[in-house]
């Protein structure tokens, strides 16, 4: 294994990203899909922080803070939509969200 380098962090981030993608594509519960999106955003954050460390530059970490803020906004709006949807249709199954399909 040797010394831990940037590559190892990137591999962990890639694994997290892939797991998040599987979650978005396979699960049908909208809450789980939103959690998988958070997982993907976290993978991106880990990449940014690892590269920031590699290059010795701080703006990467500032970007990851912006991404965390965006994730908070996204979760708030997403869960708001979810509650509004549940009030109308009494379900949180993504397959039954088909008002715009034809």
């Amino acid at each position: 294994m040797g010394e831990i380098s940037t590559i190892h962090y990137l591999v962990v981030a890639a694994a997290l990203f892939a797991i998040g993608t599987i979650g978005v594509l396979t699960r049908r519960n909208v809450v789980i899909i939103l959690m998988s999106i958070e997982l993907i955003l976290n993978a991106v954050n880990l990449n940014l922080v690892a590269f920031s460390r590699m290059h010795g530059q701080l703006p990467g970490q500032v970007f990851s803070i912006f991404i965390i803020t965006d994730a908070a906004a996204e979760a708030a709006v997403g869960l708001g939509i979810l509650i509004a949807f549940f009030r109308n249709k009494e379900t949180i199954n993504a397959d039954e969200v088909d008002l715009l399909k034809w």
Partner: protein
Amino acid sequence: MMHTVLFIIFAVVCVAAAINLLAQRHPINSALSLIVVMGSLALLYLLLGAEFVAAVQIIIYAGAIMVLFVFTIMLLNAGEEELSKSSRVAIVFGVPAVAVIVAALAYILSRGAGTAALGDFIGGPKEIGRLLFRDFLLPFEVTSVLILIAIMGAVVLARREER
């Protein structure tokens, strides 16, 4: 040496909890796994010297966002989900494909970038704050507007319609 041991422990915990997130059928178990992922990621950030980002990760992700998730799960009283036919197909073909993609990525990364050594610096609140309020002042202020819009959007969306 210490770095290596800590990295391996928390990287494994992180990925295992992420897999557990998908394996669990009940949303509340998934939410708890996600908190474990957030916590171990914060420790990875600490290993990378990003102290401020680690603190923000714990406070905002493991604190605020996960409370929001758990609150919504409780509010909707979401039960266990059943798999549909298309999601079975997605699991059968998607999971091996994603495993292959991750393996290929790991291989390419380990070959292409070689030994990109970790630098040696610390991202404490002082440095981050100086950067945030000087070089990134405009994006920072725009983000506050974004948050404001998100708050209003969440309130409007979750409000009961008056008839």
